[in-house]
């Protein structure tokens, strides 16, 4: 298949791996921010191809995983309101909140529907004019433009029964928060390909400049990732950290101006709660006043009991990259994809789920 096979080429991958091994002399401590990268790295066994000087840490780039329990609890409470239809992406349905899951709420009668896109949620709202439809929006900057477009569309159509519970988060503030925490002394970041396709590379400039961290934007195929690692190692060896794009077929330095424009029209930034990191200023999106009538939290004010964390769950540390999933005592023993204790075991992009599904050889 064109545009895929060339990025999974065994010969090319081996060449890049030997190049990395040949040039790497100093420790390279790299974090892949994005959950999509974590899955690709595990699925393809990329760590096995890297020399011992190169260490990879998984970051907080799984939108379901970083959603705080309080926000999940609020979604579940909304789902319990009579007459409401809750629409959301599949992973959210199974993710445990403090007391329940949307899945359990559905089993006891809540009308919760899995959708593939917010467009499906709009369609459900159009088809059920007598009922109120809430879309639970989790995601990063990649998802934000589609949410913004849907809200504009609902506005144009005058839909009165469509609402968004907006939990969309921004990538750069979280990266900066991790660098400020300084727990893992990174010297390189594999920047998320799809997020950067929207926001461009400008937000990363300060990481290279102020923190001395090499930044390379990567695609999601094995060759893409190995190429990004090679570029990061080169930067680290040369002592000249900067922002580069390995994923040139997907990303332009300025990002996607049209998407940014529509996001700017609909959203403004707000403080957001991140699992494992805590409250990060200006790291989330909320609907601007002009679209506030679509805001589910304004339309349905609900009392949510205080959030609590599952005993023994170390998702927070996994998301900060300071431990690997097998370091958690619950991993594979108590916490499995069938009975997940924390969100990182639920989401298809979660580190724990990726290690569970594809790891195991080196554990």
């Amino acid at each position: 298949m064109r545009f895929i096979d060339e990025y999974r080429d065994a010969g090319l991958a081996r060449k890049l791996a030997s190049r990395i091994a040949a040039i790497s002399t100093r420790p390279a401590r790299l974090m892949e921010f994005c959950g999509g990268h974590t899955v690709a790295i595990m699925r393809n066994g990329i760590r096995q191809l890297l020399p011992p000087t190169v260490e990879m840490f998984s970051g907080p780039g799984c939108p379901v995983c970083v959603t705080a329990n309080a926000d999940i609890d609020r979604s579940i409470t909304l789902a319990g309101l009579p007459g409401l239809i809750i629409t959301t992406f599949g992973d959210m349905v199974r993710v445990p909140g403090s007391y329940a899951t949307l899945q359990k709420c559905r089993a006891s009668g809540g009308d919760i529907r899995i959708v593939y896109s917010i467009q499906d949620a709009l369609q459900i709202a159009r088809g059920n004019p007598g009922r109120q439809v809430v879309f639970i929006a989790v995601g990063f900057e990649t998802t934000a433009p589609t949410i913004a477009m849907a809200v504009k569309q609902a506005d144009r159509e005058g839909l009165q029964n469509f609402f968004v519970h907006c939990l969309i988060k921004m990538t750069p503030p979280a990266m900066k928060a991790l660098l400020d925490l300084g727990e893992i002394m990174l010297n390189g970041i594999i920047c998320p390909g799809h997020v950067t396709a929207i926001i461009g590379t400008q937000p990363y400039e300060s990481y290279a400049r102020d923190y001395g961290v090499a930044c390379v934007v990567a695609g999601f195929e094995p060759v893409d990732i190995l190429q990004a690692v090679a570029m990061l190692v080169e930067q680290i060896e040369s002592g000249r950290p900067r922002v580069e794009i390995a994923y040139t077929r997907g990303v332009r330095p300025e990002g996607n101006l049209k998407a940014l424009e529509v996001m700017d029209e609909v959203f403004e930034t707000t403080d957001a709660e991140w699992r494992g990191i805590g409250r990060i200023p200006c790291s989330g999106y909320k609907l601007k006043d002009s679209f506030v009538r679509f805001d589910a939290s304004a339309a349905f004010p609900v009392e949510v009991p205080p959030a609590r964390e599952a005993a023994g769950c170390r998702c927070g540390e996994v998301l900060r990259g300071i431990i690997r999933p097998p370091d958690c005592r619950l991993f594979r023993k108590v916490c499995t994809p069938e009975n997940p204790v924390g969100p990182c075991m639920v989401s298809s992009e979660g580190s724990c789920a990726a290690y569970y599904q594809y790891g195991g050889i080196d554990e």
Partner: protein
Amino acid sequence: MSEKILLAHGSGSKLSHDLVEKILVPSLTNPILAQLDDAAVFPLSGRLAFTTDSYVVNPIFFPGGDIGRLAVCGTVNDLSTSGARPLYLSLALIIEEGLELDDLRRVIESVRNTAAEAGVQIVTGDTKVVNRGKADRLFINTAGIGLIQEGVDISGSHVRPGDKIILSGGIGEHGIAVMSRREGLEFKVPVVSDCAPLNRMVAGMLKASNNIHSLRDPTRGGLASTLSEFALQSGVGIIIEEGKIPVHDGVRGACELLGLDPLYIANEGKMVAAVAPEDAVAVLASMQGNRYGTQAALIGEVTAEHKGRVIMKTRIGASRIVDLPAGEILPRIC
């Protein structure tokens, strides 16, 4: 207005008689069924294989097949995995009130054609109609009996170190075809279900070799589940090569788009075999000579190491574990 199935069609009344005698029996007829007694009666002796399965696919018509074809193929293929020659099937229908009579006719037609293709007979059956909302249009159960030839001894627990693993063709086609129809997804390269009766292909394989140790059709849970089951049941390790597993371009495209792994997607017309190494080439050739095995490929081998585990050599030369699928398979979200 088109005719629909009514509750009365299942009540034992004149309408139910009509349904059986005008739609079901004429289409499926054979001397055993035509007796119309409560039990089918026929002579049979030897080692028998007996299996049953229920079919609840939604939608009931999908690219490449329908619930009728599926119900015949599923049971025929389950019998075939024991090395049996499938002979007789039962057919039980649970129909939701309101199903279009024409849809039922289409399904029965498909049952007939598929049974004819496989060379099996529907010898007994049952029909029930349930209230609207108590079933999803049409559920089917089939059970089947087959005869196992002298000397054939095939089981998921007979896989041995050194065996070669052969797969009869591209994976994931049924699951993707059904999902794309259900979700209204259209792909540039259309994906058609592989739903097919594999008994003739298996008969050919058994002719080509006396050393086929295990056979299984990788349905729900896909190739990954079947291989994991082999490894666990037989207490062996299995090593497969990602690059050797055939995957149709449409399936790959759909999986890329939806964030799914073809290894875990259902098939309804594929067979996986563990064969003694000396016979692998002959079995492979015999599969490739059948219309449902033209893409058959040798995808891996069995070892005494990594007991109970399946290891895949990835395209880029690393290795990873292939585990049983975990939970529901859901689309990715960003």
